[in-house]
């Protein structure tokens, strides 16, 4: 048996929608079998994962709070991936942003005088730190041809260790009974809540704003066209006079800035202080979200909601059904595999040929 792939002359928009949907169904099916193997009725698990989080106000807020940073980071990453550049160190850029912005909050702690500038300064510092941290792999690639995949990833571990050092050393709360954490931020250094007594904070709006902005840049500007052109045909783009180096630096700046902003929003929003762990792997999960959303901002928004839903559902399943949390991660990894595999339907006519006769190459 042989599998023949014939390139499609043009992409069908219906298949573009159908392929990820099919992949999602397949992932749910396989997940259901796994859950059954662990001794839990699949329909009960389905309700806990996908329906229960939607049924209560607090869990809906949790879904939004988780989806916002994922979608923001993934939108930034989409610029890179569309241009065939592989920033996989968003987790490090997120940590750098959270650390730098949090540092501002710690430095301004107990400041006598007007405090209106503290929060904007934190957001700015976080974004800039994310950009600066992303510039390291970008510059190494542009100047020396070093693989951005490996350097951006190595820098994730470095950023996590730097954060660990800072909260155990220079930024530790002197009155914190030796716990590895900074002082709790003052109100002027916290993102305001959107509703009194609830958990939803302004970081969600900042995230949404960032995504809308990015979507406009990608769809409506010359720069956005450049990114899409390079991704579609690098050679043609080079003939059109687009500069590789400038593009590389730009898309890394965008993705790093988005990740840094997400980091400081999480620190100034939900967490309210610096601690050794400020991310449940958002930077890596965002990679899944970016591809699940087919590298388009609206798709990414939808994908982020789906992934956030499964994560919140996974936490619920851990408590209610005693299902391990790693099941959620395995499910997300499997989902990404299936989405990438289903992509074949959108790009090729797939033909299964019985027997194994040799093929001839079309030029």
């Amino acid at each position: 048996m042989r599998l023949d792939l014939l390139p499609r002359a043009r992409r069908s928009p219906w298949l573009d929608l159908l392929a990820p949907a099919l992949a999602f169904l397949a992932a749910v099916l396989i997940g259901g079998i796994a859950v059954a193997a662990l001794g839990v009725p699949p329909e009960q698990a389905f309700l806990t994962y996908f329906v229960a989080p939607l049924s209560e106000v607090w869990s809906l807020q949790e879904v939004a709070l988780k989806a916002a940073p994922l979608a923001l980071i993934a939108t930034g990453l989409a610029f890179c991936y569309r241009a065939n550049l592989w920033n996989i160190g968003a987790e490090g850029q997120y940590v750098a942003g959270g650390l730098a912005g949090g540092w501002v909050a710690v430095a301004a702690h107990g400041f006598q005088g007007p405090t209106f500038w503290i929060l904007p300064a934190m957001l700015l510092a976080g974004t800039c730190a994310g950009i600066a941290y992303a510039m390291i792999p970008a510059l190494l690639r542009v100047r020396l041809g070093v693989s951005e995949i490996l350097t951006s990833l190595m820098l994730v571990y470095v950023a996590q260790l730097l954060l660990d050092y800072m909260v155990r050393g220079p930024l530790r709360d002197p009155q914190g009974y030796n716990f590895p954490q900074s002082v709790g931020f003052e109100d002027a250094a916290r993102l305001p809540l959107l509703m009194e007594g609830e958990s939803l904070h302004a970081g969600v709006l900042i995230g949404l704003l960032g995504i809308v902005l990015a979507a406009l840049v990608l769809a409506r500007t010359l720069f956005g066209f450049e990114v899409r052109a390079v991704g579609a045909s690098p050679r043609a783009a080079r003939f059109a006079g687009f500069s590789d180096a400038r593009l590389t630096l730009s898309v890394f700046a965008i993705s790093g800035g988005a990740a840094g902003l997400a980091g400081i929003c999480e620190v100034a929003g939900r967490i309210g202080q610096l601690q050794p762990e400020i991310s449940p792997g958002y930077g890596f999960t965002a990679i899944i979200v970016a591809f699940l959303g087919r590298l388009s901002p609206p798709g990414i928004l939808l994908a982020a909601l789906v992934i956030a839903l499964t994560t919140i559902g996974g936490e619920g399943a851990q408590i209610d059904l005693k299902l391990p949390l790693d099941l959620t991660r395995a499910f997300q990894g499997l989902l990404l595999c299936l989405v990438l595999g289903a992509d074949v339907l959108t790009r090729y006519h797939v033909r299964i040929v019985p027997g194994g006769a040799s093929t001839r190459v079309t030029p």
Partner: protein
Amino acid sequence: MSLDIVQMVLVTVLAAATPLILAAIGELVVERAGVLNLGVEGMMVFGAAAGFAVATETGSTGLGALGGAGAGLLLAALFGVLTVGLAANQVASGLALTILGLGLSGLVGAGYVGMKRDPAPHLHLPGFTDLPGIGRLLFGQDAFVYAALLLVAGVWWFLWRTRAGLTLRAIGDDHTATHALGLKVRKVRFLAVLFGGACAGLAGAYLSLAYTPFWAPAMTAGRGWIALALVVFASWQPLRVAAGALLFGGATVLQLHAQAAGLGLPGQLLSAAPYLATILALVLLSLGRRRGGSLAPAALGRVFAPSR
């Protein structure tokens, strides 16, 4: 006396280098065939969990090693179906594989957290192993270490001394031309991916069965990624993989000793040393090469879809 201290240090360096050698030599074959599998970390950590589980259930380190290799092979097969069979993007599929592998390792390993095992037995040849200075280094390692060194020699011989090895390298350099010649591009690539997966799984099993004989979540700690960097660093040459891995093993051991000696440097900085060293190594390599064209297999990472 001091010779024995040197020997002790070299023994630990070799132990730290072994998982890197195993994972990197497998990935080298994969990349020589033109496929970039970024899922090494995932296959490795799944191999570590599965290897420990099998060894604990059967009471046999050997079966555990096989289990680890099998687990890596399984994930690699999925990767092969995606990238070789369905022409999916290799970078994205590799990342997906890492995430999946981390999740699966947590599932498989959940019941084994906190359990300990006796480390894999070390060779003991009466007379030889007791030789001062070199005995333990040459005749006192565990089977993984010898397997890793044999694999390096075997891969070198295969790639440069056999016709099949020549075919594999040719496919990695130009899949269109080799396909036109009637060579089975997809079959060779799939087999290479499987081999790489088994090696990565074995590397993981080494960690949980010999290096630190217990299972802990995410215990590979980025070694899979360092192995990937090592392949680049070695310019896709098997013998240089071994040399590079020993260098990195040395850096790891040095960092541990520095931490124990308490140099006054923050522990986090020392822990970051292997990652910073990896970046530095890649930078130095490209400085030395001076843009003289890439040494990578020409078709590395490119999608191949044969049509009629």
